[in-house]
Every structure is written in structure tokens, then in C-alpha cells.
């Protein structure tokens, strides 16, 4: 699975499970904090669970710099797969 496929699937998960509108979410859109997307710590646990289940990559306790956006999550998955 290539990088674009991972990013596309991450976006699908974030939109379908976390309730984010697809048209406001790009791969480099900031996900957490005061960003318009505004995901929170519960959402991060859901992303961790999804990444674990889908790619077998454990992101528990990983620094928040890897959760900035879809690009950084995908990069972590590829680097640790």
C-alpha cells in the first residue's frame, strides 16, 4: 500500500467515524487543537485504534508532532510498518 492510499484511507476514516466533513479536510490540514477540524484526545485514541487495526502500527504514546495532520500520521505509519 502506497502513501497516497494510506492518506486516502485515513481521510475516509476521519470523515466517516469522527464526523469531519470531507470538503474541509486536506492531507495537510491541522487536525487537533484550535484548528477548524478541532479533534480532541478521544478522537486521537480512535485514530490510534484504527492505525493499529489497519496497519499493525502502535501509535500509543507517540509524540503529538506525528498527529499534526494526515501527512504526518501516514509518514509515521510508513516509517514503522
Amino acid at each position: 500500500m502506497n502513501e497516497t492510499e494510506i492518506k486516502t484511507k485515513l481521510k475516509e476514516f476521519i470523515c466517516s467515524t469522527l464526523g469531519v466533513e470531507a470538503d474541509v479536510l486536506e492531507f495537510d490540514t491541522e487536525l487537533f487543537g484550535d484548528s477548524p477540524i478541532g479533534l480532541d484526545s478521544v478522537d486521537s485514541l480512535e485514530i490510534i485504534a484504527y492505525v493499529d487495526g489497519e496497519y499493525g502500527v502502535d501509535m500509543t504514546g507517540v509524540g503529538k508532532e506525528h498527529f499534526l495532520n494526515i501527512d504526518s500520521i501516514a509518514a509515521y505509519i510508513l516509517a514503522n510498518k
Partner: protein
Amino acid sequence: MIYINGINDQIGQRPPFQMIDRVTELVPNESAVGLKCVSVNEPHFMGHFPGTPIMPGVLIIESCAQLCSMVIEADKQDDKLYVLLKVDGFKFIKPVIPGDQLVISVKKTRAGGSIFCFDAEVRVDGNIHAKGSVMFTAIDRSSVYER
């Protein structure tokens, strides 16, 4: 069949906040079916609502959550506490009233990282009264009072 003493061995809740009376089926880490017998003696019926007692929806969710605890705490660790993290899409289709026996079914839908997700369904006399999804995570007991 797991009676109340067996339930007490597995979950931490106690009266007046114990919402599962019996477990009729249990597949650890997968699913369970449990019973909750609703009595007019339960104190919330005094105010919810005077003259028209209806079991609060949040307590129906709590009943489902406690049954989920039975599923995921089968291999519990003393330093961990399983807590409700998210409630999704719950519907309260018909009122639950004193005298009803809730037949609650929960089934794990996904787990990964530190979370566990379940679909729950609540039936009375074979008719569906509530359904929805709940999500849990395990936290360190020592972290609960950290602010």
C-alpha cells in the same frame, strides 16, 4: 449463567449503581447477554417522572456499559480501570418502565490501541427498546485524580 456474586467478582460497581443483575451468556473479549430487572423501588423513579416512572436513558446506557465491562474485564488488571469514553448513536425507541426485564446484548465491534467498541441492543419481551454503540478505554487508576 453468572449470578450476582459472580458479577461482583468481575465489575467494580455496587448498589445503588449496579445495573446488571444476571449474565446469561458470556464470551470473554467478544460478547455477552445480561439481564437488568427494573423495579419501582429504584430511587430515580421518584423524580423521573413523578406519576410516570420511566427509566432514564443514561441509565440504560450504563446497564449496557456494565455488561460490556463483564466482557472486557475478564482478564482485568488491578492497576487499570476501564472507563466509558464515547457513546454513539443511542436511540431510545420505547420507554422502559418498572416491571420490565431488560435483555441486553453487547458485541465487540472493534478493538485496537487502548480502545474497545461495542454495539448494544436492549430488548423487553422480545421488542427492541434501545440500541447504540459505546466505546471504552483502559486508564491507570493512579491517573484518575491527576489534574
